[in-house]
């Protein structure tokens, strides 16, 4: 993941869709999504299995060890 290098000197680590990534301390959920999932539309975000409504992405500050899941729609029967 390209952005890991950018935040090499930060200390906060979160799990994003199953992968351990480093991210700027005090980063918001919205900043995280813009950085790692910029093209995705129609996605839902969960932190530690709790859904975070889209209007709260900006004000939601990530904490060290958070488990973030970004979920989208795929084909299915």
């Amino acid at each position: 993941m390209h952005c890991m290098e950018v935040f090499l000197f930060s200390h906060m680590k979160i799990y994003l869709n199953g992968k351990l990534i480093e991210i700027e301390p005090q980063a918001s959920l919205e900043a995280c999504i813009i950085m790692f999932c910029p093209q995705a539309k129609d996605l839902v975000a969960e932190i530690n299995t709790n859904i975070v409504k889209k209007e709260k992405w900006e004000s939601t500050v990530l904490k060290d060890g958070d488990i973030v899941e970004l979920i989208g729609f795929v084909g299915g029967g």
Partner: protein
Amino acid sequence: MQSLIIDNFEIQNRLLIGTGKFQNKYDVRESIIQSGSQVVTVAVRRIDLERHEENILEYIPDGVKLMVNTSGARNADEVIRIARLAKECGYGNWIKIEVIDDSKYLLPDNQETIRATELLVKEGFVVFPYVSADLYVARELVKVGADTVMPLGSCIGTNQGLKAEEFIQILINEIEIPIIVDAGIGCPSHAAKAMEMGADAVLVNTAIATADNAPNMAKAFSKAIEAGRLAYESGIPDSQNIASASSPLSHLLS
């Protein structure tokens, strides 16, 4: 022909299409358009951050009702989680419950499905539970507030048709909410048969998605389902063991 009304949504085309397994997403769109299907299923999954995947929703024509399935759920709690995620995205509250913890036959866990149905109904979802064709299970689903019952024709993706025919017929006869036959429907004649039996709708995925020409196959299914429904509403005569002449049997001039 009568419409099927679910949650105040009028369904004139009784073919429901699943959007998995298609070779490309243009075929998904064309299959929906060519068949005139009004209800399609999609699934939800963790987004792959390594590669940009096309958003299936961009290929669903406007006005088509989305039903999110809970594939991947192994118990009722996971169903609830998936349903809430789907609802949060703002695409309505129609949920097809799939609880499967058996990777060989992909048979539904009926007990967990009943439990999930009860919980989702309380949260205001419109619930389409995928279950075995079993009268007691169906009665429980009615009791807890399911909007439909979706009995499997045969195992998912097998194209074996109506292996559960006799048991589906019992549900059609005894259950007052809509019966939508789901899974295993392999060709249009299977779907027509289900409709002639009195099923309210049929959900097809694999047989359309894996056809050489998916949009044409979708159209073929739509025609078969319309024909089957029209026949059912017209009153199909009973079969007889003794011949009955269609033309006068008297001699030409006597």
